[in-house]
């Protein structure tokens, strides 16, 4: 009994920070309709800033003041981000907004590295609240009790702010009808900024308040992200009570999970989420969301045409060059080109979902890494030869995509994006925690191609054939009746349904197909590297592909391939800078605001008169 209660108390204490961060995300979304993917970064900043204040402010008074100041400072940073990055993209399609916030993540990561260094920071203990109290014989940290007591105050303050103040009334009104609020004389710009301040301040408070329990490190941003998403999805986007109930539910479950099912703690919350979603698609306290008013990926693209004569010639010339390259090039170039081709296929498969399907998946790494792990596990445990593994990898990835897709496609828009990300994290956590099978953090090694394909040149040809074949297949599918149905479902679900297209079904098949294609890329990846580690499943990997598609151009068929080639090629160079994330983040933000058509789209505008596709079509 005592043990049971102690566990619940720990869960409630953990829920405290989670609630603050999630409610901030929820608030921001309610008013601005932007899912702030950088919310985890503000949480991380809160922890670091709080830590810095605690270094200079002494005693219990200093400790709590530091936490408040951390919230304030992070709120102000939020204002800066809102004014510089988000204001220009409020009217942009959802994807652009999400990508812009991802640029913010990168920038904050490197700024934090710059300011606080790479070493983890040990959180100072709260003065006066060190040590434990025994409750029915079980030890409970005093600070946990303080957190449990604190949460209702935060919740109450929020409740008061939202229900009793003019600002809160305007926030709720704007959540329902922004245009009307503006027509009544309220300057929305400042309302948005105010809400962003509040939401980010909450994230900062959450980060600072958990310092004595978890300290601060540079991985905090991504680590909390999926938990926040799960909380808002379970609780219902925009609902504060929902955020609290879900935060408690997840945290308590987590604590029990650690004791009873240590391998599954991370997976557990996803299971709960899926169960909730099946019964209540918009969360426990949520309501149906209307699709973003500016669409998800922007204006419908122009009708896609088969490549023009010139474009075909250029592509053929490019292919010819790739074919003869091994005669001239050194093996370094071949390895680099193999990497690029694999990445291009991965990006092209995401582009297929995103550009054609309008399905903004934020967890595409699940299928790349999933294919890779499938191949690696087969080789490691069943001695499967490479040829068979390369066939089974896309099947496994496709099957995973079909299962995940079944849940994710129940929702649309930002919910869909959050769910895909959450599921990718689920797979990551399974691989990470199930060390006996997957090697956990140590990964799986010694997975080499079959004898005949082990030479650099042969493997280069193999990769080229499969990747280019895959890309051509994606392209063909785009031009097939299935591709048209997919685009019809994207542009107007109602019209598509009226012409007899089962839109959900089409999207589901597309999700599985794109997953399988990513799986081919994943399978090739394992054999080219000889090993696989969980980071291939990480959020950062999903974002890589997303950024690439975005930089390449969402609305251009070649976008994925162009972006993939450009980024993977540039990465070799750019990662030599210590602060390359900062550069990349700024570049992303710049592109979102200034050249939203991406590289391929912008090039196309320049070279409008030539054939439709350009030489970068095939890497």
């Amino acid at each position: 009994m005592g043990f049971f209660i102690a566990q619940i108390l720990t869960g409630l204490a953990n829920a405290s920070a989670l609630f603050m961060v999630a409610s901030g995300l929820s608030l921001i979304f309610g008013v601005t309709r932007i899912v702030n993917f950088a919310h985890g970064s503000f949480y991380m900043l809160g922890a670091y800033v709080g830590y810095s204040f605690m270094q200079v402010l002494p005693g219990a008074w200093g400790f709590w003041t530091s936490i408040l100041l951390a919230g304030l400072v992070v709120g102000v940073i939020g204002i800066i981000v809102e004014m510089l990055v988000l204001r220009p993209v409020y009217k942009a399609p959802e994807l652009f907004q999400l990508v812009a916030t991802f640029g913010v993540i990168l920038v904050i990561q490197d700024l934090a590295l710059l300011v606080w260094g790479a070493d983890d920071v040990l959180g100072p203990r709260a003065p006066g609240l060190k040590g434990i109290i025994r409750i029915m014989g079980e030890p409970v940290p005093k600070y946990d009790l303080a957190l449990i007591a604190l949460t209702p105050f935060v919740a109450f303050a929020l409740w008061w702010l939202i229900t009793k103040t003019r600002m809160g009334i305007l926030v709720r009104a704007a959540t329902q009808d922004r245009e009307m609020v503006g027509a009544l004389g309220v300057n929305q710009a400042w309302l948005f900024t105010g809400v962003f301040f509040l939401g980010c301040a909450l994230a900062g408070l959450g980060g600072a308040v958990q310092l004595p329990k978890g300290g601060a490190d540079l991985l905090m941003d991504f680590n909390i992200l999926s938990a926040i998403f799960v909380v808002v999805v379970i609780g219902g986007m925009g609902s504060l009570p929902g955020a609290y109930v879900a935060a408690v539910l997840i945290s308590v479950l987590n604590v029990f999970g650690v004791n009873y099912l240590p391998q599954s703690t991370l997976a557990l919350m996803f299971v709960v989420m899926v169960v909730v979603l099946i019964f209540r698609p918009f969360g426990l306290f949520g309501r149906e969301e209307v699709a973003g008013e500016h669409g998800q990926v922007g204006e419908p693209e122009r009708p896609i045409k088969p490549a023009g004569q010139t474009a075909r010639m250029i592509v053929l010339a490019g292919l010819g060059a790739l074919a003869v390259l091994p005669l001239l090039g050194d093996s370094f170039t071949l390895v680099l080109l193999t990497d690029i081709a694999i990445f291009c296929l991965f990006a092209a498969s995401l582009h297929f979902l995103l550009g054609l399907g309008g399905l903004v998946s934020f967890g595409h790494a699940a299928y790349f890494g999933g294919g890779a792990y499938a191949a690696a596990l087969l080789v490691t445990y069943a001695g499967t030869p490479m040829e068979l593994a390369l066939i089974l990898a896309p099947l496994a990835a496709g099957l995973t995509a079909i299962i995940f897709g079944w849940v994710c496609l129940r929702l649309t828009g930002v919910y869909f994006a959050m769910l895909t990300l959450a599921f990718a994290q689920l797979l990551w956590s399974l691989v990470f925690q199930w060390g006996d099978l997957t090697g956990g953090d140590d990964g799986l090694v010694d997975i080499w191609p079959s004898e005949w394909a082990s030479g650099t040149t042969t493997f280069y040809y193999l990769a080229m054939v499969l990747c280019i074949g895959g890309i051509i297949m994606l392209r063909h599918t785009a031009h097939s009746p299935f591709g048209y149905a997919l685009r019809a479902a994207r542009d107007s679900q109602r019209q598509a349904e009226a012409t007899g297209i089962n839109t959900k079904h089409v999207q589901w098949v597309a999700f599985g197909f794109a997953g399988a294609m990513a799986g081919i890329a994943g399978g090739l990846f394992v054999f080219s590297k000889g090993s696989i580690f969980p980071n291939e499943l990480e959020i950062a990997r999903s974002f890589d592909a997303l950024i690439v598609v975005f930089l390449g151009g969402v609305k251009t068929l070649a976008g994925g391939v162009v972006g993939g080639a450009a980024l993977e090629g540039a990465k070799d160079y750019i990662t030599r800078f210590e602060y390359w994330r900062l550069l990349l983040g700024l570049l992303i933000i710049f592109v979102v605001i200034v050249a939203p058509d991406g590289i391929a789209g912008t090039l196309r505008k320049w070279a409008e008169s030539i054939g439709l596709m350009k030489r970068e079509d095939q890497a």
Partner: protein
Amino acid sequence: MLEIKGINSFYGKAHVLNDLSFGVERGKVVALLGRNGAGKTTTMKSVMQLVVPQTGSVAFQGADITRMPPHKVAKMGLGYVPEERRIFTDLTVMENLEVGRQPAREGTVTWSEEMLFDMFPNLAERRTNRGKELSGGEQQMLTIARTLMGNPSLILLDEPSEGIAPVIVEEMVRVILRLKKDGLTVLLSEQNLHFAQAVADRVLIIESGIAKYEGSLADLQANPEIRDTYLSV
């Protein structure tokens, strides 16, 4: 007081208002008449800059307000009462009024909640009810009251009689006449000629976004063929 000069408004490529020009004098009630889809709502939105006219201009009290953000237009004293009511259904009556609140403005009545409850006694009993708990008529009253909280000098009333019971329409007539007596200028859109007859000084008839007739109500009554051509009675 309000001068609209040659505005052309579009939804995407659809050309909805065509070189529309007209004016509203201070203290008058002008009715914008026309069939469903004639462009009445678009005219209202073009005045508010919720739809930005591509060419032409809108001037209010001598100042050009074309392309101004809607919140600034509202702050100048233009009150907008939308046709679909668009009250905040999750907010209470009092909170809905709060959203509309603006500082007092010289030359206009400064409204308080209590003054509004005097004018709309039904709402007074429902202060703490949420918008979604109100009847259609009550919602319509609330939309008007909410806009009045901004102390406007001119209000745009988009089809105030649409979809409400005849008794409430009567009340609406009473309210508009009372507002006019207080010195408020009103531009209202209507399909219901009887309602317009009860309140308007002047009418403007539009069809397909083109002005077809402008004149006093008496002239319109003397020309039944105009009425029959452009209005569905």
